């Protein structure tokens, strides 16, 4: 038997493709290398109950994978660093049924019109290859509307003055604001910023048979014990309920098999360690922007640009300690954001001129707090005073932070390729990440950091600190050169010209007729918004094009 499609990866991208295709009558097999802790193994139309408010399991013991011993990645900043400077975890997103959607805290903003036309709006940048997308916001809007309903996004239409037009309201109202956010948004407004309730894929009211979020506070980096996070459990349970899908966890796809211009199926290794192959009429690759290029490289597909233009969001992190308790450990990790750093103004234009650059863009700024006690305890110095510092709890109870997901530009030299020596447990070369922030990122971070610091001072901070991820550009506690954003973008860029892109405007590989990429690998530019809703909308659009279906409105 040959299935209509094999889908590689069960994260938000793969789950969305599976949902669209199975509803159009296709048969699919979803192959996922990680374990299944999301769906009930006896009845995959229902969620499992493996998630918990357990900091040890999720943040110290790799419960959702990837285990860096079994699947190490390697890192270097550039050729001058040699083969690699680090082996282990590099900007990892869970490898598990549901992928990164399971432990993201799920801010799901749409991109704006300008994000699809960076080159024509702002023009080129030295060293970077800024490009327009081969589609517009209007092309994607109906798919945005459809996937917002499918995963369940809570938000307030009109709250963000910069937002692109919407064809309808959000499926749910915004959830409860964190106390700290009520203060930081007031301070930000006073200094001329425009904060708003972050659109979030977590239920603010019971929705689609799942309960409302009860603000447990164990949100980023952990799975939701009550499945109030909709992405992607809603899509996967619905897919399995069609009866046209199989989901194979603990199974690694090692190669896409081809004959001429067509893929015929994939080779895979199941939990028994045996390598097998299966036939499929179409292959959908949704492994995320690091594993997808790795698989294309292992399969020798996609051409010379595969793995190039890796983007991760150059984060500017500004923290402030408040003289009062903000109890940031309650609620979702982030409830509010603002977009002002993405809107050029006189100050950012002057900063660009000073840096010798044509323009500067920052990214969406998240207002958040919190932290759990084990990670807090590890930050403080050991010895006498540790107990008192924990009781005082500068980090968990008094800290408020801004994280700007700074737009990083597409540089040919920031890449994912195959490490020459390091292997995964199955014997395949590990992905090697080569990344260094460019002049634009450093200048944007240096420009926006102090403006955010001023907001924290306005909020009442008695102590502030600025740093970035990757670090080392300016003052900061940590000088880690490995990005930790958990946003991975680029590496198989989309375009109409096969000489300058890897996939066509519907995610189809230029060099094969039936292989489609359904994740953020295809983004030509990164924007400064979290990538997930946009990659999900693109995956729905690509799957819709395959199956000949229009967005369900």
């Amino acid at each position, binding site marked *: 038997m040959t299935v209509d499609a094999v889908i590689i990866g069960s994260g938000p991208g793969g789950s969305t493709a599976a949902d669209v295709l199975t509803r159009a009558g296709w048969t699919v097999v979803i192959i996922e290398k990680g374990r299944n802790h999301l769906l009930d193994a006896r009845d995959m139309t229902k969620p499992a109950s493996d998630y918990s408010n357990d900091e040890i399991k999720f943040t110290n013991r790799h419960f959702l994978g990837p285990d860096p011993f079994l699947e190490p990645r390697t890192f270097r900043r550039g050729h001058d660093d040699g083969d690699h400077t680090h082996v282990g975890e590099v900007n990892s997103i869970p490898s598990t049924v549901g992928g990164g959607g399971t432990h993201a805290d799920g801010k799901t903003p749409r991109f704006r019109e300008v994000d699809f036309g960076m080159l024509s709006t702002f023009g080129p940048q030295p060293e970077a290859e800024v490009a327009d997308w081969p589609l517009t916001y209007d092309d994607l809007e109906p798919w945005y509307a459809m996937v917002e309903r499918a995963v369940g996004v809570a938000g307030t239409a009109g709250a963000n003055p910069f937002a692109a037009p919407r064809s309808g309201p959000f499926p749910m109202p915004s959830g409860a604001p964190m106390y700290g956010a009520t203060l930081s948004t007031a301070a930000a407004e006073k200094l001329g910023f425009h904060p708003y309730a972050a659109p979030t894929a977590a239920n603010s009211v019971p929705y689609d048979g799942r309960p409302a*979020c*009860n603000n447990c506070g164990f949100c980023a980096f952990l799975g939701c014990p009550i499945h109030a996070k909709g992405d992607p459990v809603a899509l996967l349970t619905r897919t399995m309920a069609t009866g046209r899908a199989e989901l194979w966890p603990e199974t690694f796809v090692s190669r896409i098999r081809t004959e001429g211009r067509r893929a015929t199926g994939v080779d895979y290794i199941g939990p028994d360690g045996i390598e097998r192959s299966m036939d499929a009429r179409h292959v959908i690759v949704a492994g995320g922007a690091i594993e997808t290029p790795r698989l294309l490289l292992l399969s020798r597909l996609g051409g010379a640009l595969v793995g190039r233009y890796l983007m991760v969001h150059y984060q500017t992190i500004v923290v402030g300690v408040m003289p009062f308790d903000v109890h940031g450990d309650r609620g979702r990790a982030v409830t509010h954001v603002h977009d002002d750093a993405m809107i050029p103004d006189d100050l950012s234009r002057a900063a660009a001129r000073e840096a010798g650059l044509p323009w500067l863009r920052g990214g969406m700024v998240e207002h958040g707090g919190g932290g759990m006690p084990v990670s*807090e305890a590890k930050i403080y110095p050991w010895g006498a005073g540790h107990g008192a510092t924990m009781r005082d709890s500068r980090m968990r109870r008094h800290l408020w932070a801004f994280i700007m997901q700074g737009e990083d530009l597409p540089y040919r030299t920031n890449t994912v390729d195959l490490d020459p020596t390091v292997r995964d447990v199955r014997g395949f070369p590990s992905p090697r990440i080569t990344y260094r922030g460019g002049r634009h990122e450093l200048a944007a971070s240096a420009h926006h950091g102090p403006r955010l610091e001023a907001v924290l001072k306005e909020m009442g901070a008695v102590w502030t600190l600025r740093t970035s991820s990757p670090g080392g550009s300016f003052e900061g506690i940590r000088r880690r050169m490995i990005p930790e954003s958990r946003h991975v973008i680029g590496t198989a860029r989309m375009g109409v010209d096969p000489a300058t892109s890897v996939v066509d405007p519907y995610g189809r590989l230029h060099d094969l007729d039936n292989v489609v990429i359904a994740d953020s690998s295809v983004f030509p530019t990164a924007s400064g918004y979290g990538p997930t809703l946009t990659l999900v909308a693109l995956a729905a659009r690509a799957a819709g094009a395959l199956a000949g279906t229009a967005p369900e409105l």
Partner: protein
Amino acid sequence: MLPQTGRWVHLHAPVEHPTDRADDGARRAERDSHPWYRDPVPIWLTEAEYNTLRAVCDALIPPDGDSPGAGEAGSADYIDTLLGAFSFDPPRIWAGGPTSGRAGGEACFGDFHHLSALDELAWRTRIEGSQGLAAREFNGPVTGYQQRYHEGLGRLGEDFPQAAPDERVVRLKADPEFLELVFGHVCEGMYGAPEYGGNHDTIGWRAIGFAGDVQPRGWTDQEVSAP
């Protein structure tokens, strides 16, 4: 969808793990017969190592009148449980879900998850070291926690518990790699869920006013948004 070809991937052939220590069963039975957080019986460490480790815990997070030291809170028991995780079935690596019973719901954290073959390979290697086994050395040899604790505690000396506070600090600082390992674990044992062997009776959480796991109760919108 039946398999069309089949071959073993050599690095992923079934893995032979060395057996657990012969006396593990007896030690476990002895431990289970004690309310061990009051009268600790180590599972994997020797009594002498356990006593040194407890003193290390108190040197890293000392009692201060308002908070217990990490020794009393159970960090040594947490570490000892991790080192002996594979003397339990299922191994004490990942506590169960979705609730602990402390904030309502059923008490499920104690039902530890079963490990897959690959999970077991990873965690046995991390804890026991690679021991020259090809399946564990696909990227080279790995020194496990057990060996690092044996050697690290050995270097601190059996007289560490009796040493003066200043002397303890000097000895700990002389071994920065071991210090980094043990401090991380001490924090996990003091402030992680009690089911992992530490944070006895949630004493670590209570000392800092942390509610711990709160599902299924959660927090009301008022508790989130108001001062």
